[in-house]
């Protein structure tokens, strides 16, 4: 009897601190599988964010660095420029990449850094207590928008992937989802493509993953996946953006 599925080598076999049904666990695993399948384990360097995934380096079994909140792409730029032989990726939440780190994100993309970005969009600030994020949907209740996000006061959900796609330095952007088995399979393909682009020197590649945060969505893990499919993916359409 063959073992056809077990945890990837690049993921430590330890329990994580994530809530039940959290998308970070899925995203970590898919990235680890892609690293193993592409044979990158000795070559890859991850830059972890500030956010719920702040200790991702305790879970991935390859080299990792940490960056100050939002500055992952600035740190990754430095690492890649002095160690071009390494495959460098950032892993960032919506608060990290699209709020406090917007500046670093836009300029790394505009410089066309040959980097890979995994952008975990869960439409809230998970780590700090479920506050509104730039990607929070209209009418979505968060701890700072208890009546729901109102465009008049809080603006609209920020489509940073579409904005970045306008920059000539950006070579590949795809939005995927962790909301179903089929979507997870597509996500893995997108992750591999974003790594391959860096290996082949093609340039700045970003994969945005719509990711469940059952805790601050106030939904069960199963309901959270339905919410991604039926509501979130309407505001953030899936597919290749560039």
């Amino acid at each position, binding site marked *: *009897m*063959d*073992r*056809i*599925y*077990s*945890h990837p080598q690049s*993921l430590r*076999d330890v*329990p*994580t601190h*994530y*809530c*039940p*049904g*959290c*998308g*970070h*666990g*899925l995203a970590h*695993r898919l990235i680890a599988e892609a690293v193993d399948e592409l044979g990158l384990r000795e070559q890859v360097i991850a830059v972890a964010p500030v956010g719920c995934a702040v200790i991702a380096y305790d879970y991935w079994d390859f080299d990792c660095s940490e960056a100050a909140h939002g500055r992952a792409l600035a740190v990754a730029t430095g690492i890649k420029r002095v160690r071009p032989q390494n495959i460098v990726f950032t892993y960032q939440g919506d608060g990290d990449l699209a709020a406090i780190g917007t500046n670093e994100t836009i300029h790394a993309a505009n410089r066309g850094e040959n980097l890979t970005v995994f952008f975990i969009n869960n439409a809230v600030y998970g780590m700090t207590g479920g506050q509104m994020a730039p990607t929070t949907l209209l009418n979505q209740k968060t701890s700072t928008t208890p009546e729901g996000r109102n465009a008049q006061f809080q603006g609209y959900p920020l489509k940073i992937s579409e904005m970045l796609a306008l920059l000539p330095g950006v070579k590949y952007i795809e939005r995927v989802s962790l909301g179903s*088995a089929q979507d*997870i*399979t597509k996500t893995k393909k997108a992750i591999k493509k974003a790594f391959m682009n860096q290996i082949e020197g093609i340039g700045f590649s970003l994969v945005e993953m719509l990711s469940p945060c*059952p805790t601050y969505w106030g939904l*069960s*893990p*199963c309901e959270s*996946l339905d919410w991604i499919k039926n509501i979130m993916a309407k505001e953030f359409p899936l597919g290749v953006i560039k």
Partner: protein
Amino acid sequence: MPRIIINKDKCKGCLLCVSACPQGLIMIEGGFNLRGVKPVKFKPGGKCSGCALCALMCPDCCIEVYK
């Protein structure tokens, strides 16, 4: 026959595997694990196809599939 092994003490009881199994072969176990959550177990006597959808959906890498 294909089978799965669930790491009971790593399980967080999110139930994503339960809804992923096309044959409804995963169920809540009843007791508590070392984490203090109710883990899931494979239904006794169930005929697993080895499709691995449960393992694909588990955010905590608790499921191994053998075929």
